[in-house]
């Protein structure tokens, strides 16, 4: 069910400000692609254009093409709501719905899609929570509020919520930046397991994390303050971290800036 993504000539704007410019890349199915780069380089913005979350912000718009297995997400007949069902997202800060129980959080997406059968929902809850390595910890308190979990558990709950609707792609926007090292490790392990089923794209500030979890890494940079972000290079993670073809990448990775 995982699909590949082909982006060509993509630019994104906030009002009249151009945030990213002319980005083209291919993202392989059943693999983890990491986006790295200094703050403000547009990697999160770019991530949000992959499931049309970017345009949720008032005044934001996108130019260019994103093909999900040859289907352009930005074609006029495409429904952004349907796109987000196929391309799931996990956010920087864990955001389980505060008024819902753990169970209801996991099935929120299915309920929206009109699935009401208890048997189906029960099965999905168990499968998703197991998939997110959270089942053992919460299976006896599924009706407790999701906000009562620890930060790392909350984030895994959000991953369970995202995979419950069986998306083809999973976008993760710095999923560990608000977590402690042990929770981070748990999430990283989880990413490794999930990539057998999903195409995973992860934005991270942490280069060690990119090196640990990803198969391919894309480096983003901006020419200066107020300039739009650009894709500098995309390659196998090993190559990027050992022998990048662009000098700026090497400078960034070796800590010379950013």
């Amino acid at each position, binding site marked *: 069910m995982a699909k590949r993504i082909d982006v060509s000539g993509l630019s994104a704007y906030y009002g009249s400000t151009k945030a990213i410019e002319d980005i083209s890349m291919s993202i392989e199915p059943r693999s983890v692609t990491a986006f790295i780069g200094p703050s403000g380089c547009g990697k999160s913005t770019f991530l949000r254009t992959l499931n049309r979350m970017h345009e949720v912000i008032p005044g934001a718009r996108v130019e260019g093409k994103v093909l999900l297995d040859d289907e352009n*997400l930005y074609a006029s007949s495409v*429904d952004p709501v*349907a796109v987000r069902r*196929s391309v799931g997202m996990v956010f920087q800060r864990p955001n389980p719905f505060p008024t819902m129980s753990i169970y209801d959080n996991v099935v929120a997406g*299915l309920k929206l*899609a009109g699935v009401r059968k208890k048997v189906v929902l029960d099965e999905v809850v168990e499968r998703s929570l197991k998939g997110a390595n959270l089942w053992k910890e919460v299976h006896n308190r599924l009706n407790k509020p999701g906000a009562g979990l620890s930060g790392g558990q909350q984030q895994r709950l959000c991953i369970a919520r995202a995979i419950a609707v069986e998306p*083809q792609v999973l976008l993760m926007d710095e999923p560990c930046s608000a977590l402690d090292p042990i929770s981070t490790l748990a999430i990283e392990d989880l990413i490794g397991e999930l990539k057998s089923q999903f195409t995973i794209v992860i934005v991270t500030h942490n280069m060690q994390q990119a090196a640990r979890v990803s198969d391919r890494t894309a480096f983003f940079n901006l020419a200066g303050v107020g300039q739009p972000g650009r894709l500098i290079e995309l390659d196998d993670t090993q190559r990027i971290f050992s022998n990048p073809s662009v000098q700026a990448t090497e400078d960034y990775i070796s800590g010379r800036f950013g």
Partner: protein
Amino acid sequence: MSAATTTVSADARPLGRALTANRLPKWAPAAVAAGSIALGCGIGAVGGLASHLQWGLISAILFVAIGYALSARVEGRRQAKDRLATSVVWVAFILAVVPLVALTFYTIQQGADVVNGYFLSHSMKGVLASGPGGGIYHALIGTLEQVGLATATAAPVGLLTAVYLVEYGRGRLAKTVTFFVDVMTGVPSIVAGLFILSLWNLALGFNYSGFSGSLALAILMMPVVVRSTEEMLKLVPNELREASYALGVPKWKTILRIVLPTAIGGITTGVMLSVARITGETAPVMMLVFGADYINSNPFDGPQQSLPMYIWQQYSVVNNDYGYARAWGAALVLIAFVMGLNLIARGIARWRSPKGGH
């Protein structure tokens, strides 16, 4: 919906993988709105419905229903629900705008003919109430004095209470005060009037006067002043207080010289908004000030007039077209005064907000 052609829609396959869906064109809601209004007016005109309220209601119902039906056919149930919510929200917006605009325009339209120099500078003394002529000068004087006295009573008490709650308040007393300030905001104005009546006039034996009215107004004003001042004082950064203490300045001087001046813009705004609120109060004034046709500029002795009460009397006592006209004139002046206060207050809030933004 059962037609095989709707397989692309979301409900045919709950977790459907299709990214495309039949969508209504962008201009569809506007077209539905225009069509519904035309249809609604048509039905109203043909059916001979007298009130335009009905025309509007029919149009609104048509707009919501047609929009939903159309979207349900073309886009599927979920999209249709979304559109339904959108149209209902827009209808709510229109529903709110209509009476509010009607109120404003009607008041201006009716009042503009009446308000002139003569109207503003003459009282009703010697004017036959059922006839034309007369003015609101006595009512203006009365309102200004009563509101002024009420502010002079309520503002210091409210301010000090807020200072107590923010700067000193700990423990049960502060909690009780906070709770009752909240509850006091909800005291109906007529109850405040009854209270002053039983205390000031019946128990203490004072007569009708502008001042007893202003006491009731002060009761209504105090909690509002406390609330807004409290909010403003909380916005003053603690660093300012600490910097002042570090210089050896005593607490009370810190409050008077540092905290209050920093928050003065917001405090003024709050006081002005509460002044605007009590200016329009009718019920307690009616009970305690009694009303007069002549100019009485002494608020401590004898009946006075006030703008809201003047409107009430012109409407319900005079109760003819001359009375209505004067009532609208006074209403226009009252609204202008209250709105003016509001605009100035918000202007000050913008200009001197302690946050320095917005």
